[in-house]
């Protein structure tokens, strides 16, 4: 879904002009999902998504042509990078937290935990920027928007995506076959 493109219900350009409730409807869930996929921690994802909103309220972009969604994803991305850099919650970021299964079956729960571990292990073997571009693309970001969030040239996004996609598929397949090097 491209919020700032055709079909968007909001013109996400200026924080002063935006109904926060409507902005929440558009951005919170994708932002939470993005943060959760990056960190593996649902609590951290919630906090990071909320922090992006709080920072938007405090010092979000003003004036025309300021994409709020891109700005908020960039805030969250930088927070995650900073936390990883500082070593805080490193275990959370790298290992993630297996999620509880709504089905109270021990066998199914173990199976699901293993599936999650495999995905996280594969993601963890990517460079942070590669993870970010993959996840942003999954959230429907355009190449230009991805470039703005992760601070790369728009012309390099296609190559970054192609290589990180290939890398992910390769290591994920190995993880599923039990030949992974991590975990």
């Amino acid at each position, binding site marked *: 879904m491209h919020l700032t493109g055709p079909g968007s219900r909001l013109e996400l350009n200026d924080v002063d002009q935006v109904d926060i*409730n409507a902005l929440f409807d558009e951005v919170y869930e994708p932002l939470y999902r993005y943060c959760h996929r990056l960190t593996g921690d649902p*609590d951290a994802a919630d906090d*990071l*998504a909320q922090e992006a909103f709080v920072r938007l*309220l405090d010092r979000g972009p003003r004036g025309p042509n300021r994409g709020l969604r891109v700005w908020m994803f960039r805030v969250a991305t930088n927070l995650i990078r900073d936390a990883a850099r500082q070593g805080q919650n490193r275990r959370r970021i790298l290992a993630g937290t297996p999620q509880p299964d709504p089905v109270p079956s021990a066998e199914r729960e173990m199976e699901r935990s293993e599936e999650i571990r495999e995905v996280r292990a594969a993601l963890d073997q990517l460079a942070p920027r590669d993870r970010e571009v993959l*996840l942003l693309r*999954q959230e429907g970001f355009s190449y230009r928007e991805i470039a703005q969030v992760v601070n790369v040239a728009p012309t390099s996004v*296609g190559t970054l995506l192609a*290589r990180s996609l290939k890398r*992910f598929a390769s290591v994920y397949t190995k993880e599923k076959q039990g030949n992974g090097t991590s975990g």
Partner: protein
Amino acid sequence: MGHPDEGMIRALLDEEATGEKEDARTHLATCPRCEEEAAEQTADLQVLAEALALLDTDPPVQAARARILEEAQARRKGVRMIRRSLPRAASFAVLITAGAAAALPGSPVRQWLADGWRSLGGTPGPVATEALEGVGEPPYEGTVEGTERVGATLPVGQGGLELHVRDLSPLASLTILLVEGTRAGVFSEEGTRFRTEDGRLEALGPPGDVTLEIPSGAGPITVVVNGEVYLRRTAGGLQILGPVQTRTPAEIRFGPSGSRPNPPDSGG
């Protein structure tokens, strides 16, 4: 043309190609090697999408919406309700490092920093605050980890600000910190109620010690504790009228409100 690189093929598949995209598209449709690369990328994308879906959980939409809307409403009135994890003074450094927003209700980044807070000696436990009915801003209600203080801040305008602490326990102390910026604040333990109106910020019934923050560069400020003026800052200087216990350039600590007040002291 030669074979487009993997990035160009990705861009073509994503309909993001620029430049020689028509040539590349034509090539892709006729070159088995590039067609195979495109098929592999399409399959890899499917693998990624299915794998990522395994990670997803339902976000706490309702709670997050409530907190964010509360934040937005508070900002429109210039008030920030704040909760801070302050197991001890050193945790100020954590909050400063994380930026002021990290201290806000619902705290964005609060859980993110929880490990750091705990490492400073905090004791996890549920915390809730309560609001006076019909006045001021409702403080954030919820539970978070860490030993926390709750508080409210308000910008000090040209006309100045009165900070009132009511029903402070006779055994409790009160500390005034000089801080940067333009916002004054009052902080205490959970259960404290807050009330704001133009030029006035009140903390009612704090169960424990109270900390006030006074911006060094803002307008006139008066601090009133249980009806007594403890401090008055005007353009003419600083008057300290409460029972001072200790004093440094950045901090004034008052003893329990039941203690004998010092003689009025003036200073800068």
